[in-house]
Structure formats: structure tokens, C-alpha cells
């Protein structure tokens, strides 16, 4: 259901604090750890803050205004470009993103339990990590099935705690080691070319920003003004989150490990380290619960889950996380590739949505057609799918992998002139825009009249 202005919760303070609470999460530490493998502290700070701001801005621009104007979630907003049925593919990509993050954080939870045991003198095996993943899944299930109220209560405790934890990490880093030691610490496993390392770190920063795509619609549709739909996202999800990621990079560089659960004891000593680890473990469960909750809501877009009980929907979102219990090490080693994969998905999608909303539809969509499944709807395209948008999406992804393959780590020499996310954003958007004009014989899609009326023939709620 689209949200009415009277139902929207966030003014300026609310939008900023909610974005901040989302932005400061344990996955920031993971991102910081990945970037520390490539570059030193100053470059990590620059790449993470500036890159994150660019990624969030480019993901927000095509979504924030339309979500805020119409009270819609981002998946619904994709219908004009991708088609009323084509959004199922976008939804699938979105779920891969959310569940991938959940899995990585669950492994971090398992690693945290193992490292707590190690700090207390118990040398336990790797099976504890798998057990931790399963425990995390069960705890997430218990939180999410108790509704958004329980989730908000946990978040209300965890977010201030995470701020304190980041302050604690920074205090220990600066008091015990100092800025000079931080800046002189060598990257953990850099490639042979400093320029390529920097460019990949920039890409990870931008991809980290793009990975907020899934939360932007939810935040924007809950805001009362256009300014609140975009400034807090760029400032908090972009700047603040990037700064927390950078604190993670500093810790990783000083400790010499990209695993956040290995930072706390060396930096804070056994007592403070174990307390911090216990807190990080709790924060990981909350982060997973938020991700699972959002995934469950997204699944509601599918007919099969529309009338299913909430517990079944939550189960359906948690089952794909089980492989992380079987292969925790192998899958978490792909974390940096997964981070870049966010750019592969969302950069071209964002380019297509930007061209569609601002240039082809001139910032006006038909709310009636968003909720119309019948073929008479404006966004039905061909059998519910706009194949051109998918062709542009695939072309953008191909360009991305051509420049930088996140799974093999292979790069092309053009990487030095063209950033993969920015390149695929522009390429997919341009290809889609030109293609739509060619299909329309030089004309934009038919404009939405000022006054439009129903009824809905085949409502898709």
C-alpha cells in the first residue's frame, strides 16, 4: 500500500537519526576490513567516505523523489522501467543482496563466539563457527517473528552501543598506537600495482554505497519532504557509514587482520575485548534480523507469499542462509567479491531508473498502473516485462565484469580511466534511454495525464 503523507514518520531529525542507525552497522566493519587488504589508512578513509557518498547518491537519486512523492517502496518504483512482472527479477537480485549480507554477518557472529572462547582460553574448533551461524539464524527468527516492535527495541539498544564501540576502537587506536602508526601500517594483502589497488578500493567504496539500494525506498517513502528523502541518506548512509567503515580499516591495519572479531582483544585487552566481542555478536544478530525483516517484506511482493503467514515468510528468507553454516570459511572469503557484486547489480539498475524517471517520464508515473497487473496497464510492456531494460542491465553488468571481475580479481587496463560502477551506471542508462526512444520512434512514453482514474482491473496487492 502506498503511504499517505499523514502516515509518514520522519521529519528532519527522524530521517537523519534513522539513516544513522541503519548506517552504523556491523557490516561497516566487514567493508573496512576488505578495503584494508588493498590500501593504507589515508587512502582507505578517502575511498570509503567519498566512494560511499557517490554510491548512495547514485542509488538514491532515481528512487528517493519518486518513493517520497508516491509513498512507494523501491521494488514498486522499478515497474515503469522493468515491467509489472519484470520486477520479480529485480526482487530476486535484491534478495540475493540482503541474504548475502545476512550470511556474511552470521559468519561474523560465529567467528565472534569462537574468538570469545579463544580469549577465555578455550581452544575450540571451527565447528563452533557453524554452530554460531545456526544459533544466529534461530535468534534472528525469534526476533523477526515477534514483529517490528521487537526489532526497533533491539535497534534502540544496539545503535548507541555501536557508536560507543567505534569510539572505543578509535580511542584505543589513537591512544595506544597514534595516527602515525595507523597511517604507516601496510595494507594486508595488496596487489602489485598501487594504482590498481586504489581503484579497486574506490570501487569497493562505491559498491558499498550502492548496497544501500534496498533500504532507500523504505526510508524515502517514510519522509514528509523531498529534502528529507535524500539529504539524510547521502549524509548518514554515505558520509557517517563511510567514516565507520574507515574506523574498521584502521583497526584491521593495526591488528593485521580483516576479520573484525579478531580486532577487539588485541586492541582492548582480554576483559574489554571480550565485552566488545559479546556486544558485536549481539549487534550481528540485530543486523541480520533487520536484513531478514526487509527480505520478508520484499517477498510479500510475490503472489505465493502474499497471504502466507509471517513465520513462513521469515523461514523462507532464512533457509538460503544455511549454506553459510556448512561452508562458513569458504563463503565469507568471497565477501569482498560479494561487496563488488552489489555494484554489478545496482549501478546499472540505478542508471536505468534514473533515465526512465527523469528523462523519459519527466518525473511523473502513474500510480494506478503501478498496482495494475492487467495487460492494459501502462507498465505491462511485453508480457509484463520490458526486455530492453534487462538487455541494458546485462550490458552494464558485462561492462562491469570486463573492467573488474570481482570473483577472479582480474582487471582490464581501462580500469584506470573508467570506474566499473560509474561506467555501468552511465552505459546502462544511456543504452536504455536510446533504446526506448528508438522503440518509440523518437518519442518518449505517453505522458501520464494530470487527472487519472481507476478502477483497477487486476490489482496486484
Amino acid at each position, binding site marked *: 500500500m502506498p503511504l499517505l503523507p499523514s502516515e509518514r514518520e520522519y521529519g528532519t531529525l527522524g530521517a537523519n537519526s534513522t539513516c544513522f542507525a541503519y548506517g552504523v552497522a556491523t557490516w561497516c566493519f566487514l567493508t573496512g576490513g576488505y578495503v584494508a587488504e588493498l590500501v593504507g589508512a589515508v587512502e582507505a578513509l578517502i575511498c570509503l567516505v567519498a566512494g560511499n557518498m557517490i554510491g548512495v547518491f*547514485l542509488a538514491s*537519486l532515481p528512487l528517493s523523489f519518486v518513493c517520497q512523492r508516491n509513498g512507494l517502496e523501491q521494488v514498486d518504483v522499478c515497474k515503469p522501467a522493468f515491467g509489472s512482472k519484470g520486477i520479480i527479477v529485480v526482487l530476486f537480485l535484491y534478495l540475493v543482496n540482503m541474504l548475502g549480507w545476512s550470511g556474511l554477518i552470521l559468519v561474523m557472529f560465529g567467528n565472534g563466539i569462537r574468538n570469545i572462547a579463544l580469549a577465555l582460553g578455550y581452544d575450540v574448533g571451527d565447528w563452533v563457527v557453524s554452530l554460531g551461524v545456526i544459533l544466529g539464524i534461530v535468534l534472528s527468527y525469534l526476533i523477526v517473528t515477534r514483529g517490528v516492535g521487537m526489532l526497533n527495541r533491539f535497534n534502540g539498544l544496539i545503535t548507541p552501543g555501536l557508536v560507543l564501540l567505534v569510539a572505543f576502537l578509535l580511542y584505543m587506536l589513537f591512544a595506544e598506537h597514534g595516527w602515525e602508526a595507523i597511517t604507516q601500517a601496510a595494507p594486508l594483502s595488496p596487489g602489485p600495482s598501487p594504482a590498481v589497488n586504489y581503484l579497486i578500493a574506490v570501487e569497493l567504496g562505491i559498491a558499498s554505497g550502492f548496497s544501500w539500494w534496498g533500504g532507500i525506498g523504505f526510508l524515502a517513502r517514510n519522509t514528509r519532504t*523531498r*529534502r528529507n528523502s535524500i539529504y539524510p541518506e547521502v549524509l548518514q548512509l554515505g558520509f557517517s557509514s563511510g567514516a565507520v567503515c574507515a574506523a574498521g580499516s584502521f583497526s584491521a591495519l593495526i591488528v593485521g587482520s580483516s576479520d573484525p572479531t579478531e580486532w577487539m582483544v588485541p586492541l582492548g585487552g582480554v576483559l574489554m575485548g571480550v565485552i566488545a566481542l559479546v556486544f558485536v555478536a549481539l549487534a550481528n544478530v540485530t543486523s541480520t534480523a533487520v536484513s531478514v525483516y526487509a527480505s520478508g517484506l520484499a517477498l510479500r511482493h510475490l503472489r505465493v507469499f502474499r497471504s502466507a503467514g509471517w513465520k513462513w515468510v521469515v523461514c523462507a528468507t532464512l533457509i538460503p542462509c544455511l549454506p553459510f553454516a556448512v561452508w562458513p570459511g569458504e563463503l565469507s572469503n568471497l565477501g569482498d567479491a560479494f561487496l563488488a557484486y552489489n555494484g554489478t547489480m545496482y549501478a546499472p539498475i540505478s542508471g536505468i531508473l534514473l533515465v526512465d524517471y527523469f528523462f523519459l517520464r519527466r518525473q511523473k508515473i502513474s500510480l494506478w498502473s503501478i498496482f495494475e497487473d492487467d495487460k492494459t496497464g501502462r507498465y505491462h510492456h511485453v508480457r509484463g516485462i520490458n526486455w530492453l531494460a534487462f538487455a541494458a542491465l546485462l550490458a552494464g553488468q558485462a561492462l562491469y565484469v570486463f573492467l573488474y571481475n570481482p570473483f577472479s580479481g582480474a582487471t582490464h587496463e581501462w580500469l584506470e580511466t573508467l570506474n566499473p560502477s560509474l561506467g555501468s551506471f552511465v552505459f546502462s542508462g544511456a543504452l536504455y534511454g536510446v533504446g526506448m526512444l528508438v522503440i518509440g520512434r523518437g518519442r518518449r512514453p505517453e505522458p501520464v495525464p494530470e487527472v487519472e482514474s481507476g478502477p483497477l482491473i487486476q490489482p496486484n496487492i
Partner: protein
Amino acid sequence: MATVQNGAHATKTEAERVRVEELTKRIEMISALDEDELGGWTRMDWVLITVLGIVGPLVVLYGFAP
């Protein structure tokens, strides 16, 4: 048994009808919203958000490139 099933079907249909009615009402209300009710957005905002979101960060990234 058939009566129970018919009753359940009728309840579901009624619930769907109410949902569609509510959706239709919301679409009408949101479509009729005046742009001013959604908060202002000026050219200055475009300049500011573009500098904040992409121009500034790109300049910083370029400046620190090895």
C-alpha cells in the same frame, strides 16, 4: 464442508475487496497531492546535492589518487 469452504472463500473475497477499496482511496489521495505539500526543492538544492553527492567526492578521490 462445502459450506465452510464457501464461507472461507467469501471472507477472503471480502478482505480482498476491502484492500482494493483502501488501495484505490490511497491512490486517489496521493495522485491529487499538490507538489507544495511534498516539500520544496529548488535549483539550489540540485546544485548542493550534486556537489555533495558526486562532484565533491570525485574531486577528493582524484586528488588522492596515487
